[in-house]
């Protein structure tokens, strides 16, 4: 295989990696940041993707927009805002629920959403939504990934970011310090959903197709896996998790048995991580870099 062939072949997996990483970063804010388990993250991704696609296919020609860069930027905004709105609709009632119920309610909403998408003929129903213009590409995906990563890293230090983390660690203590835990959780959920929507907008304009399956529970589980395997508490962990989930199957391309069994190993890693190394694989890697590991938690 020549270098050129390799690059050619790598583009799609890299796009998938970038998009999974953006999804995972969004969920990281909800799961690792606010401590809320959303089992319906893929639904917000699908909402973003469908809305962005509907925007470029139906709305943009009507508005007379043709510039591809502008269109892509606008569709990112549309994707983010629509997912944000969907996240808001789900979160407002569901955040009143405690832990496990919240997880099931988000799962339920995702299933309902998938069912609804299957029944909307304007976006293809069960057949899926095709013929979406190709607007995004590898650079788009990676620049967006970098921006989202950067923004989330800075977001942690802001007032809201601190409030979200405090709420995750101890709601009663957070409230006793004047933090409205409800708005903290709501913000985390809504922002995380919006990020998923951005990933959706990038996806539909790279692959030029989306089907209701994208809102599936199994897709949501993949994102949860990425966040948990890499290490819930860190952003780089989520990106690492996405890398493992996308690249490992690609690397196993020539080994069908291993490739088919990959979910078994991912599931085992998740259980292992939860039981023995709650900070995820990232913290295991950190152990091989003693200096970096000692930075946090050491005396200075």
């Amino acid at each position: 295989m020549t270098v050129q062939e390799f690059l050619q072949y790598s583009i799609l997996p890299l796009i998938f990696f970038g998009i999974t990483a953006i999804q995972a970063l969004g969920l990281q804010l909800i799961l690792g940041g606010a401590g809320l388990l959303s089992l319906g993250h893929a639904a917000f991704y699908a909402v973003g993707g469908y809305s962005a696609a509907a925007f470029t296919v139906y709305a943009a020609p009507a508005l007379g927009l043709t510039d591809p860069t502008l269109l892509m930027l606008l569709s990112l905004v549309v994707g983010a805002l629509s997912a944000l709105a969907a996240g808001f609709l789900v979160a407002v009632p569901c955040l009143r629920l405690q832990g496990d119920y919240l997880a099931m309610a988000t799962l339920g909403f995702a299933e309902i959403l998938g069912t609804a998408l299957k029944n909307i003929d304007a976006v293809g129903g069960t057949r899926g939504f095709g013929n979406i213009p190709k607007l995004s590409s590898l650079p788009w995906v990676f620049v967006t990934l970098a921006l989202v990563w950067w923004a989330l890293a800075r977001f942690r230090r802001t007032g809201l970011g601190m409030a979200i983390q405090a709420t995750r660690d101890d709601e009663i203590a957070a409230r006793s310090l004047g933090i409205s835990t409800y708005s903290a959780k709501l913000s985390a959920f809504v922002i995380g959903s919006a990020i998923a929507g951005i990933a959706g907008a990038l996806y539909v304009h790279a692959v030029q197709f989306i089907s209701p399956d994208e809102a599936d529970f199994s897709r949501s589980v993949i994102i949860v896996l990425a966040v948990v395997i890499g290490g819930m508490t860190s952003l780089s962990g989520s990106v690492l998790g996405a890398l493992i989930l996308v690249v490992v199957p690609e690397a196993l391309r020539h080994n069908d048995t291993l490739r088919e069994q990959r979910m078994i190993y991912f599931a085992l890693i998740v259980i292992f991580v939860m039981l023995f190394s709650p900070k995820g694989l990232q913290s295991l890697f950190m152990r091989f870099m003693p200096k970096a590991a000692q930075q946090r938690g050491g005396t200075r």
Partner: protein
Amino acid sequence: MNSTSNHGSSEFLLKVENLTIRFGGLVAVQNFSLRVPARQIVGLIGPNGAGKTTVFNLMTGVYKPNQGTVYLQETELTGRGAHVIARSGVARTFQNIRLFAGLTVLENVIAAASWQRRGQSVASLFALPAVALKEKKLLESARKLLEFVGLSSYENWEATSLPYGLQRKLEIARAMMTNPKVLLLDEPAAGMNPTEKDELAKLVRSICDVHGLGVLLIEHDMKFVMNLCANITVLDHGEVIAVGSPLEIQKNPKVIEAYLGAEETTGEGTAAASGQGSHS
């Protein structure tokens, strides 16, 4: 005794009247009243299960009282949300320490300023100059508070990896970051050795004198309470059985009975009955 007794000369910061709460058929707290003046330390004592922490929870909005009122100066706080009460100027610590485990020592303190930074998140995301100065000041005051409680050298530790006594001090620093008028301390000296307790006593004293706060504290260590508090309220079975100066409380037959009657707290009962303020 050398407790400062400017009792009556200053206005009341926190005024609690006739608080009552029932859990199912059980009356946990009944007709509880208490006042906390500025720059004064008030004690709340009583045998285990008397309802002391429940009183804190009622005052800070964790529970909503069935009856009664809570005022902070002119503001009524009765039945408001916990975060609203905190923003009005009532801060607290917890009996079972509740630090933010995922955050460092410094971050724990900064997290307490979150609500004061509302509406600035976008600006601080991009480090706009409008908020840069504010953020710097915030960091400074957080560091100052850490210095005040003696935790400067632990800034970057994970909060929960601190020794127990220091965790309690960090909770105090964190509570003070909300700029409270009244500070409620729930057993701040629990699990501390005598040296640490002396340091803590000094700290609480200067919270009052230097920072000008009113302090209400729950404590089982009678020597600690008697030394520090100008005024003590004794709670038993959810009801106030005595109010007064440490000397009055020590002599009060009802208090002695309440403590001696409760088997497990015999030791403390003796302390209540005979505890002398030996040092300050």
